[in-house]
């Protein structure tokens, strides 16, 4: 077995045979300006890894996960905020009506009197942790003069798929139906998030589409798009590597892991091109070493084929959690390199608000073509 998976790097009996993965431990693989956190001692990540490890009993996960969430929330509510943050309990969505969801409404001081833009922000964290302190939610709301809607969705150790998607759906529906009270414009919603926030944002957009909602755009970073490994990927191992992604999504999907029985509401690349018709304008920012980078590219091509407005930005010499994302997801110290990525990212969000980049005619044309081919 390859030495990375020996000793304290052993991941509970996981086998990695020679030649199956590329070891990127040496920071020589990274862009010189973004090598922060290139290789971390796996011990630092044990608190997260145990929450999705199949070897850890569920009661232990619940106890550890609840304690960790409690500390994140205590930190959030005891910190001084630059925006007003209010907590709501909102009704469950159509698919799980009896489960209410906690939703935060983040209001910066520079809002208009009414009909404000909305940043529907999905916090990331591998579906194992939801730490709002680690993401620049307030800064983004201030910068884009918008109301932040932050759903506190259930994590994989609390409830498996589709719980988190149901929670996002419920939050969106509530926000949409209470636009006037919230002082928002419900046709001006941009979904954003990073890592799991990106994954769930994209996946939930398929759910929202099924229910007739049409966000202005989706701007995500390091989104996971697929749980199904293919020959030729899982190339790298590093911070949030193929093994971690595998276990993280396995914990969320359970027996539905790596199955075609579940569609894009679980993982976006389960979509067919047809599923993608009418998908909102989408902007994806990914790292070369994201474990499912090839599936990300594939998902992008499906959006292209479905004629959505879509941009795909991939950064070479970057992995899931390194310095290129320092500004976008509070990942280390900002520098010129990370600022460059952030300017592009933020301008995509601004464009979604400023211009309507949706393409409703694609759906109409598709319907007409379908009728022509198969009749009424």
């Amino acid at each position, binding site marked *: 077995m390859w030495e990375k998976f020996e000793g304290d790097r052993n991941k509970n009996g996981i086998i990695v045979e020679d030649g199956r993965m590329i070891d990127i431990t040496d920071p020589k693989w990274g862009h010189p300006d973004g090598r922060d956190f290139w290789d971390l001692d796996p011990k*630092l990540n044990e608190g997260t890894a145990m929450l999705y490890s199949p070897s850890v009993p569920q009661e232990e996960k619940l106890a550890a996960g609840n304690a960790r969430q409690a500390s994140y929330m205590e930190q959030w509510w005891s910190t001084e905020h630059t925006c007003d943050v209010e907590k709501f309990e909102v009704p469950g969505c159509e698919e799980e009506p009896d489960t209410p969801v906690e939703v935060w409404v983040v209001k910066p001081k520079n809002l208009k009197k009414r009909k404000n833009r909305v940043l529907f922000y999905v916090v990331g964290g591998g579906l194992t942790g939801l730490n709002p302190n680690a993401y620049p939610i307030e800064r983004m709301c201030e910068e884009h003069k918008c109301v932040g809607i932050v759903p506190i969705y259930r994590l994989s150790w609390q409830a498996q798929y589709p719980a988190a998607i149901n929670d996002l759906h419920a939050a969106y529906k509530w926000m949409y139906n209470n636009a006037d009270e919230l002082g928002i414009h419900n046709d001006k919603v941009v979904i954003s998030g*990073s890592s799991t926030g990106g994954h769930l944002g994209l996946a939930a957009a398929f759910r929202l589409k099924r229910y007739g909602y049409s966000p202005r755009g989706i701007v995500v970073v390091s989104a996971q798009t697929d749980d199904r490994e293919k020959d030729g990927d899982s190339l790298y191992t590093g911070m949030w590597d193929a093994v971690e992604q595998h276990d993280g999504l396995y914990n969320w999907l359970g027996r539905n892991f790596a199955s075609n029985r579940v569609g894009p509401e679980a993982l976006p690349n389960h979509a067919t091109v047809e599923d993608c018709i009418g998908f909102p304008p989408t902007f994806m920012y990914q790292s070369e070493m994201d474990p499912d980078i090839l599936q990300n590219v594939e998902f992008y091509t499906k959006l292209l084929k479905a004629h959505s407005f879509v941009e795909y930005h991939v950064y070479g010499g970057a992995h899931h*959690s390194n310095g290129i994302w320092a500004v976008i997801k509070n990942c280390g110290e900002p520098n010129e390199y990370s600022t460059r990525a952030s300017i592009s990212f933020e301008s995509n969000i601004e464009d979604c608000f400023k211009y309507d980049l949706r393409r409703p005619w694609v759906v109409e044309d598709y319907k007409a073509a379908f009728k022509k081919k198969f009749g009424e």
Partner: protein
Amino acid sequence: MVEFYDYEGLGNIIDPESDTKQVFIPSPPTMTTVKTNPRSTILYITGGRIVEGYEKLEELKAYAEENKVVFVCPSSKDPEEVAETFNYIQSKYKVLNVKRDEIAVMGDADTMDDAQAVVDYLVDECDADIDDAEEFSL
């Protein structure tokens, strides 16, 4: 504490302990310690005198610590070989915790010509933005 170590077989580095701070990596959620307040660098051209056993090593370490500066001391004074050291700093600046655009080239009284030749070479071949060589003495 001031570390003294060989780098890539090219020479030795005198590296005072960096300031550190705890940061949070959001995805997956992990706490880690990172070096902070990057230092400036003196590329010290002596033709290889700064080695274990150099009589003023402790003095040099004390100077580095007091002035919060990293000494990078290549064994060679051939500009082409010193350029390898320069490129090492450029690519490892995060790990070294130095500001890669704050490099001063210095020499001893008897290596000043070599140090200036290094400056000229780095400006010509590596697009370095550095001042003329200065003499350094303890």
